[in-house]
């Protein structure tokens, strides 16, 4: 609607539109394109967007159905997950309950998920598993998880390394699902 009125105003702009006076220039009404009375044609952005009310169709206002619109509003915050650590959920998600005497900790993300990711490098030829958000003794975590993976995959050469600046433990290969399973089993 706004665009169509804009083109109309541009097309039928008279010579008086170029006057620099601050007075409101009243254009002659054009019966073909609709009434443009009251439009400041020399300043498009200050001009009225709406036309006269007889150009619009009628409507009725209703407040009854607003409750259905409220269901469509997305949450502004990440929803709180279930707070009972004993409940076993079908998806395998569990509330973090880290052991007390563990020298390291892996914190959940803001979405309450395990921070284990797959990173694909060299055009898909090399795959790394990243464990982020590690706190405490990062080398102990590297040793523990490397040992567990080596026991699970005896024929595989498990290569691990750490980046203590970015607090990452990096394992060569796509082992994200195993790492996630181990971290959840440990209580992180």
């Amino acid at each position: 609607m706004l665009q169509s009125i804009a083109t109309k105003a541009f097309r039928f702009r008279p010579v008086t539109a170029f006057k620099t006076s601050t007075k409101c220039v009243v254009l002659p009404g054009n019966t073909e394109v609709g009434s443009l009375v009251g439009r400041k044609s020399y300043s498009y952005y200050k001009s009225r967007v709406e036309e006269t009310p007889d150009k619009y169709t009628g409507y009725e206002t209703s407040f009854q159905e607003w409750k259905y619109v409220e269901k469509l509003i997305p949450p502004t915050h990440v929803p709180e997950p279930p707070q009972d650590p004993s409940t076993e959920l079908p998806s395998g998600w569990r509330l973090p309950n880290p052991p007390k005497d563990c020298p390291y900790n892996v914190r959940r993300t803001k979405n309450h998920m395990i921070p284990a990711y797959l990173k694909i490098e060299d055009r898909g030829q090399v795959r790394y598993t990243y464990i982020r958000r590690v706190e405490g003794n990062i080398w102990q975590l590297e040793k523990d998880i490397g040992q567990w993976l080596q026991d699970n995959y005896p024929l595989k050469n498990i290569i691990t390394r750490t980046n203590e600046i970015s607090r990452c433990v990096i394992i060569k290969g796509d082992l994200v699902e195993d790492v996630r399973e181990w971290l959840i089993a440990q209580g992180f």
Partner: protein
Amino acid sequence: MSMKSGSDWALALLRTLPRVNLGNLPREPYPKAPKRGHGQHGGKLHRGPQKGSFQRMSYPRLGWEPDNMPWYVRVPMENYYKNHHLKRQYPPLSLGNLQLLIDTNRLNVDEPIDVTAICNTKLFTVKPSERHYGFHLTADGIDTFKAKVNIEVQWVSEPVIAAVEKNGGTITVGYYDLHSLWAARNPMEWFRGGKPIPKRWIPPEDAIEFYTDPKNRGYLADPEKIAAERLVLSQKYGYELAKIEDDPKRDLLLKRKDPRQIFYDLEPGWVVNLRDKCILKPKDEALLQYYNN
């Protein structure tokens, strides 16, 4: 026979004259063009111009097309990706991810789940600009799916339908055209623009069979046939079909959208005023006729 007039004499003469045939036709009045000979009879230019390949009879080989690769040398074309940019895309949403969304309170099981609810999690979305026509509910994580939901997706396979109905839920497969999907994926942005809720169009010709098939739980299928197919599928996969009629969540599980409807309980043509928290309904006859058809 008595000859009475000159015309009778002329006709009698005609009867005695020989018939016209190739042998008694006169020669043409003009002489024939001299024939250009070959070899010893002359015509050293070989019926061609005085230059070039035609005089020397070095004609191009058979099948030669100037400016074109010959058809027998051309690489055969296989249009494997032909019109791939026009095909409908359905980004996947696995049953495992759906269960995780429900477990972490991203999705409310007490409300019907549709494309708007999934997009409002802000973890999954569809891009109509890339010709995404909605979600494809895939079978990944089918063994751990335990939720009882009323879900509406845009593409589905048979084991997924069985997994949802085994838990006592219901599933509908509905089609959204791209214009209404823009409204469905982010309704707040749509309402903020002051645009009326659009009406859903019926599926295109090549998709209407899928969305009217009761085996796919299509939204245009006959509900009685869908009920029959639910029983057939439960017997095929060997589970006991839950009775929706006796379920306490009966109203939730049987809640369906109109084929023209995008949002539950909101009709096409309405304009949502977010500032005054009200809804503007059109009264014009032409608008009502357009949105109700």
